[in-house]
């Protein structure tokens, strides 16, 4: 049995024993009882109700919410009517905030690691002690090794204050794991091709589209509220959906065609579609001539990829490939290929996303109803500037095409691991990343890196695995108990600025990130980083935008004029690429020494008796963020993950539906916990599927501990996209070990 986490590491052992984690627990469990077992008469009493408009933190989509408070408690969360990303509606996780704020396992106060007789424990600390220790250690490390020995890993919207603080301190190593796995390739793939990002929400006019093709991305399970709203509106209006996915996803269930493509062959498939569009003259010649560069180079690359050839690679009949390409062209320009979200499956995510961008370009759907559109931002003036020390480098990443727009990360998260292993990085400041369960380079590699860290601070709301390795644990209050920076940077149909504001006071001894960051800044003698209070800061920014905090508090949003989405007849298009055109062949890729057009590269196959392990999401959960959320996890479909197995594979391995097995990967890693087998027609024979975010090994997570199996534990093999530094992890294969 592989117990790779911690047991054999004496330097930074995983602290499992401290009872201090749970100081709030007794009081909380009675509270939680009340939240989750009402009298069934929610609105019966004439209690005064306060409604607070804010935005959600259960994923990066950041929908507007309305928190309903009665007797000092949030009893429900509904979708904000004012916020354009919710339209009064929410995905299941949006409602689930009550399960996070009233989680009985929440971190209640700061903790400091202490070593006594070879054993580490945590002791409860005051904020002053914890902040003093953190400041001292960070200062020492900076003095000794320079600011580049400190890195911040982050995910979630509260990180901005820490980033400001660190920038003033001279630290410029920021990494968000989500860059490596999801937003990186789609962002860069689009930038390289169109000169702008694919956007969050994606710039696809789904609700007016007639035909949308999805590669893998599994809307309905991946629950981006607004996108799901648009897809359903599209279906009502007649949208036809095509899904390429080795698994019959919920979205595939809505498709006119589900094409169970062999995993890892999407580029071949898309090349074949380009081949059909070009050989059959179905592409928009005029658009291509006027607005793109590199057509000939592209044609040279895809001319060999006939549907017949692609059929052999992808396991999809040539006729189906032709049919989809033809229909795509026939519905264009009201047709689109969706960029997806977690785009880094293998090392070729950027080029795969470029294929998607190119397919869209070939049919000339840019700025057309039902095609690719470009949303606009609300014109919110930048936050007032203050002086930063000179940075040694703006971007620390070694990858030539690492993001080149305003970075929220200056390196890839796996580079933090690598530099730590090379002794270049000594301290980690981790904000909202559950590092051991968040790929980076797989659990084992990550824990090896953690072991090398001299000083690790974790800012979190829960005793997640990462906190068990920290020297200092700083309990942040949840998003329902704090202000954060304005959500003002995102383009959408209706440009908006959204406010996060507290619905109730922070519970226990937890504090908002903005306060924690201010306390650290004060201790580090960094002056002028923050306004006197977060309200003052927000008010200043909003006043600069012609409103005020007081005003925006009412609805939680500031709305701009709806974006003019569509091309006017004769309108000349410009793109912020080196050529000013859509780059079918990317000049930047070429300059950096890569193929300018996407190439299909064969990925390794599973060893005999092993199956490629695919992963995805459940609509009601967001991995680490909701793992211990009892309110959301309660449903029978949410409690644990299953391993999806085709009936023939099940037969071959003697597996029955519902039995528990351990999984073993190609490197011999055996899942720590067993996982339930789901025998289903809904998956190909050469792959298995499990939802990521289960199998937590920290016992302090009273709900999440030992439920299902961890996907990340089974990742031993990763491939890095040499252009942008994203990490692919789908070349991992598992087999089954039956319970004795």
């Amino acid at each position, binding site marked *: 049995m592989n117990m790779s986490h911690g047991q054999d590491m004496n330097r930074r052992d995983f602290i499992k024993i401290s009872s201090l984690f749970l100081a709030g627990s007794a009081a909380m469990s009675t509270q939680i009882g009340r939240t989750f077992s009402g009298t069934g008469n929610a609105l019966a009493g004439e209690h005064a109700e306060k409604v607070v408009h804010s935005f959600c933190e259960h994923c990066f989509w950041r929908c507007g919410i309305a928190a309903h408070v009665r007797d000092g408690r949030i009893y429900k969360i509904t979708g904000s009517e004012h916020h354009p990303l919710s339209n009064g509606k929410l995905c299941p996780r949006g409602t689930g905030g009550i399960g996070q704020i009233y989680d009985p396992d929440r971190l209640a106060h700061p903790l400091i690691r202490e070593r006594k007789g070879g054993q580490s424990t945590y002791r409860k600390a005051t904020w002053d002690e914890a902040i003093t220790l953190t400041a001292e250690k960070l200062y020492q490390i900076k003095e000794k090794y320079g600011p580049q020995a400190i890195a911040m890993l982050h995910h979630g919207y509260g990180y901005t204050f820490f980033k400001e603080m660190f920038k003033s301190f001279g630290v410029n190593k920021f990494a968000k794991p989500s860059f490596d796995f999801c937003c990186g390739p789609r962002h860069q793939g689009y930038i390289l091709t169109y000169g702008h990002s694919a956007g969050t929400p994606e710039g696809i006019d789904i609700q007016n589209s007639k035909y949308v093709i999805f590669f893998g991305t599994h809307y309905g399970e991946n629950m981006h509220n607004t996108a799901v709203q648009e897809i359903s509106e599209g279906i009502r209006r007649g949208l036809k959906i095509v899904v390429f996915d080795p698994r019959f996803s919920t979205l595939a269930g809505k498709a006119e065609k589900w094409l169970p493509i062999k995993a890892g062959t999407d580029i071949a498939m898309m090349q074949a579609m380009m081949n059909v569009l070009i050989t059959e003259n179905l592409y928009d010649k005029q658009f291509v001539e006027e607005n793109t560069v590199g057509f000939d180079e592209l044609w040279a690359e895809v001319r060999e990829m006939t549907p017949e050839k692609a059929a052999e690679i992808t396991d999809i009949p040539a006729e189906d490939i032709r049919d989809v390409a033809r229909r795509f062209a026939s519905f264009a320009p009201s047709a689109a290929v969706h960029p997806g979200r977690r785009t880094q499956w293998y090392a070729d995510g950027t080029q795969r996303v470029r294929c998607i961008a190119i397919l869209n370009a070939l049919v000339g759907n840019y700025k057309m109803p039902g095609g690719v559109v470009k949303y606009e931002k609300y014109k919110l003036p930048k936050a007032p500037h203050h002086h930063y020390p000179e940075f040694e480098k703006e971007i620390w990443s070694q990858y030539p095409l690492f993001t080149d727009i305003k970075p929220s990360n200056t390196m890839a998260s796996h580079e933090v691991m690598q530099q730590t292993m090379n002794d270049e990085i000594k301290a980690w400041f981790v904000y909202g990343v559950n590092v051991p369960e968040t790929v980076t380079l797989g659990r084992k590699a990550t824990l090896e890196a953690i072991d090398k860290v001299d000083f690790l601070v974790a800012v979190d709301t829960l005793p997640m695995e990462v906190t068990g390795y920290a020297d200092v644990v700083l309990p942040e209050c949840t998003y329902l108990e704090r202000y954060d920076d304005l959500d003002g940077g995102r383009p959408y149909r209706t440009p908006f600025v959204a406010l996060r504001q507290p619905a109730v006071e922070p519970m226990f001894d937890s504090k908002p990130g903005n306060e924690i960051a201010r306390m650290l800044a004060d201790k580090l003698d960094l002056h002028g980083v923050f306004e006197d209070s977060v309200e003052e800061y927000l008010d200043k920014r909003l006043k600069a935008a012609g409103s005020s905090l007081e005003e925006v508090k009412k609805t939680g949003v500031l709305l701009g004029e709806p974006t003019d989405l569509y091309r006017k007849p004769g309108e000349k298009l410009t793109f912020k690429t080196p050529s000013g055109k859509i780059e079918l062949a990317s000049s930047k890729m070429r300059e950096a020494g890569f193929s300018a057009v996407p190439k299909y590269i064969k990925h390794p196959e599973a060893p005999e008796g092993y199956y490629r392990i695919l992963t995805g999401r459940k*609509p009601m959960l967001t991995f680490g963020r909701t793992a211990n959320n009892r309110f959301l996890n309660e*449903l029978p479909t949410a409690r644990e993950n299953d391993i999806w197995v085709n009936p023939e594979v099940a037969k071959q391995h003697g597996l029955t539906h519902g039995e528990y097995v351990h999984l073993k990967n190609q490197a011999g890693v055996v899942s720590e916990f067993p996982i339930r087998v789901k025998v289903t027609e809904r998956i190909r024979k050469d792959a298995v599927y499990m939802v990521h975010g289960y199998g937590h090994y920290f016992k302090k997570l009273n709900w999440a501990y030992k439920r299902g199996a961890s996907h990340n534990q089974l990742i031993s093999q990763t491939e890095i996209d040499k252009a942008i530094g994203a990490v692919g992890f789908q070349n991992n294969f598992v087999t089954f070990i039956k319970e004795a």
Partner: protein
Amino acid sequence: MAKQKNYGMVIDTRVCVACSACVYACKSENGVPEGYCRDWVVQETEGAYPKLRMENRSERCQHCENAPCVTYCPTGASHYAGDGTVQVNRYRCTGCKACLAACPYDARYVHPEGYVDKCSLCKHRLEQGLETACVSVCPTTSLNLVDFNEPEAKADEMMNGKEVYRQKEHAGTNPSLYWISASNKPGA
């Protein structure tokens, strides 16, 4: 006098993604205790690889016009509320469970506090002119609250020209939930 209401739902399974937002919204709106639910989601997949069909449905009490739960309730606790809904008066409910046995849709549960509970069609919200919690939250607008007595008949408009069914009609319950089948073509 205001026209008598006759509430029900039209549920569009073409768009439902079985996300369960409706279940959570109901649970927090109605304080449904841990371990129980008033509505639930069913995902049904039929066929054999690679020819599969799927239908997703958010199910709940059907607010039957001929409701066996009311017929068999010995105390009158289960009753027709006069607005097309079927309600339980918990202050008359003995917890004899006859209604649970009587309901062909298994829509009811025994509340730990000793009465029987089920979807109330959020009566407290209807009375305030609000939609039900599940209808309000549903990101796909699969759930639609309708008043079958409404003159412009939003319900008809939604269902016209589509394959629509009701569940277990042969049970004689005359249910008030109408289902737009997932087998309808897009934009039907």
